[in-house]
């Protein structure tokens, strides 16, 4: 039987396995793992974003040159990926708060798939807008 989310058992190896190989597990574990990975990636991006903004303050020409890369299809795809991470992490966070405060944790499976559906739909819409601007 699967261990409840948030219960720390089995030490480091168990945690790494659960983080890296969440396969054959419930949607609850997937929600947890995706939330963690998206959070870590967004935390890394915070520092990348501050680095990019540093060039606006100190070297605007370098920033404008960088925009050439950012406006390329690959750069725009990166932006779409970023919106995907932001939406999933944000909506899943709201789901956790709602489920905890409203006592609706048993319905986590439906809530998770709702979060995934909204994330994918809004990301798709954002992708259409982003690629139409450049």
């Amino acid at each position, binding site marked *: 039987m699967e261990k409840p989310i948030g219960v720390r058992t089995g*030490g480091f190896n168990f945690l790494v396995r659960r983080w890296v190989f969440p396969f054959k597990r419930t949607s609850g574990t997937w929600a947890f793992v995706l939330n963690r990975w998206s959070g870590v990636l967004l935390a890394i991006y*915070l520092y990348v974003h501050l680095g990019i903004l540093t060039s606006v303050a100190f070297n605007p020409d370098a920033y404008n040159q960088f925009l050439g890369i950012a406006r390329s299809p690959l750069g725009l795809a990166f932006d779409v990926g970023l919106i995907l991470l932001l939406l999933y992490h944000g909506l899943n966070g709201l789901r956790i708060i709602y489920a905890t405060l409203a006592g609706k944790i048993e319905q986590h499976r439906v809530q998770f798939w709702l979060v995934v559906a909204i994330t994918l739909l809004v990301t798709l819409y954002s992708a259409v807008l982003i690629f139409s601007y450049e």
Partner: protein
Amino acid sequence: MPQLETKKQARQSLAWIGQAVSGVLLFVIVLLHLYFQHFAAQGLLDAGEVVAHVSSPIIFALEVLFVIVVTYHALLGIRAVLFDLSLSEATRRNLSVGLTILGVATAGYGVILAILIRLQALA
């Protein structure tokens, strides 16, 4: 030591509440940031446009609030992730101190950047 356990649980609850409150706030701020900086502008802004954008006091205040809240939320999240790795109490304490210093430095740097960019607009 039941008293220590209670204090530890209280700290964890406080961290959870902090993460939840900053998360909700951040959700709203990120949507506003994306809308004003990218979608309303219909694309990525060049350096001059970013400077002009931050010249608005409302956008400037939003960006300053954004960098403070996002840093708090991100580093509290990293702390939670690292705390899951069966660390000793002493390591957890050192980690909390280290992440607090990193957070203050990051948010401070972000606020200084916003001020410098705004000063360019006012010059």
